[in-house]
């Protein structure tokens, strides 16, 4: 079985800057790590690999510096690491990112199972997984908290939703995005780290993917960030401090009294 894991590299610090012109993130010069939630997708793949004759490839789209993040996946046990990197991909929104990932999956595939994390810790949209699945025309299950069973006939999963827990069986190929409840990701082993150090990470640009330039990068992105601002200060705060604190407490008390569970002893 061929498994593909979608990884995003995210900044390893909170010191992210935005390009004021385009409103997109400046990724150059910032250290990156694998999005922590994607590690659960990778762990899911690695556990499947351990059960039989399966291979695990990881793919990420990003600037050359993101190579270090995908290399980490090799150290954990992935067999193949690919970085989609091209100046033309820069500034992509979720739709234009999914276009590139889906095209890669088609060209290098077919993959039997594609795994993704719930969302990235920086953008927090969770859109790229379902968008990619939709573009590939395969079934998608999100918010998966448990892999119940996987065999030639399909994958059975549990997903947690607002009103309960669902168990679904999906045929293969399918795309499954997992939450952090699905497993605890392993740490790279020393041997894995050694292997990863000189492992050839494959770099793929649009020469290979051959996507219409109007569908990639900032040009291909339907959405545009038009304004960046600080959240509006919508309230006039009344401050209490020092000797006034008591008045402040009384003020809160006044508002809470109606909620008291009255005791008629």
């Amino acid at each position, binding site marked *: 079985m061929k498994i593909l894991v979608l990884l995003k590299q995210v900044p390893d610090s909170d010191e992210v800057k935005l390009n004021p012109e385009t409103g997109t993130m400046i990724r150059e010069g910032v250290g990156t790590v694998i999005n922590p939630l994607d590690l659960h997708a990778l762990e899911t793949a690695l556990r499947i690999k351990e059960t039989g004759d399966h291979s695990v490839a990881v793919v990420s789209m990003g600037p050359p510096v993101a190579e270090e993040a995908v290399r980490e996946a090799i150290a954990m046990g992935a067999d193949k690491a690919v970085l989609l990197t091209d100046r033309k991909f820069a500034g992509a929104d979720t739709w234009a990112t999914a276009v590139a990932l889906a095209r890669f999956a088609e060209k290098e595939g077919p993959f039997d199972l594609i795994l993704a994390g719930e969302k990235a810790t920086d953008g927090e949209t969770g859109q790229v997984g379902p968008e990619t699945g939709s573009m590939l025309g395969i079934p998608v299950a999100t918010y998966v908290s448990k892999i119940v069973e996987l065999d030639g006939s399909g994958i059975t999963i549990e997903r947690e939703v607002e009103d309960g827990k669902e168990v679904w069986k999906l045929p293969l190929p399918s795309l499954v995005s997992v939450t952090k409840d699905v497993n605890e990701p392993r740490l790279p082993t020393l041997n894995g780290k050694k292997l990863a150090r000189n492992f050839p990470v494959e770099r793929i640009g649009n020469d290979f993917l051959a996507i219409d330039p109007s569908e990639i990068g900032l040009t291909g992105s339907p959405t545009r960030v038009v304004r960046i601002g600080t959240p509006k200060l919508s309230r006039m705060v009344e401050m209490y401090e020092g000797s006034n604190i008591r008045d402040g407490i009384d003020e809160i008390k006044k508002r809470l009294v109606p909620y008291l569970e009255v*005791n008629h002893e």
Partner: protein
Amino acid sequence: MNDLLVIAEKRGSEIHSSTFELLGKARELSMKRPLTVSVVILSDKSVEEDSSSSLFSGGADRIILAVDGSFKRFNFEPYTKTLAAIVRKLSPEIVLAPATTSGRTFMPGLAALLKTGLTADCTGLDIEEGTGNLLQTRPAIGGNIMATIKTPNHRPQMATVRPKTFSPLKEAYQSKCELVHFDVTPDLTQTAVKLIEFHPIGEGQKGVQDAEVIIAGGMGLRKVENMEPVYRLSKLINGTVGASRKIVDSKWVGHEAQVGLSGHTVKPKIYIAAGISGAVQHIAGMQTAEFIVAINRDRNAAIFNFADIGLVGDAVEILNELAESLESEVKK
């Protein structure tokens, strides 16, 4: 006239409150740009009459009903294909859906099929003067910023919105009450994906999302033992305990209590933030509370910018003092 579609969120056979919140917002947008507001319901059976009348009075000009056995619970392929067919037929300008586990899944699937943009978890929606574009505002990465996003050259413009972000209409809308049945052809619902089991969550577990009063703790409480006064106060007033991301990550409380971008969005009558500094992700989850109390030792903490009352001091002492004072009220 231009169309705006709200994709209804169901809980069992009921229409979820988040649908009415989006209708409220849709009516607001229609004041700036003439829009026919439709609710799209994908269901395994026809809607009850009181559901449809409440949707009409809640702001819908039209209900578009698509009935098929495969819509009993959310399933990716039947949902995205049917919604794509409905959108292609109507060519709406705007499509909105609640940012729930299903909305956050079918909306990207739908955007991919329609080759258009989608903005997740919007906290603000507006119409841009002149262009008529939908301005979609959401909290963005890391720092203290809000990003406003638009989809200038693609239609429809799509957005998901967290439940409890907007308010439903207060007064009943005078609707034309148009009910349209969409013919669901078998090619739209063909799927090899099967629901094996469903285990509903038991009743009576009212979460932080439905709470009227929330007392939320943050790292400013310093250690897990100091959550005690939070529980004490919460018990007294039948409130619900909330939490910042940091104390959930530190396992002081479970994830179900987390308020903010990666937790729940809440809209209680009273929100008390105790020892919470006010990271933008947290603010995004509670700023629409009716009344906000902030307690923090750092008088420059960002949380005070979003509060109605701010107390500078030790949250543990202040909460205990407040609890004592309320206890004496009970004994009176």
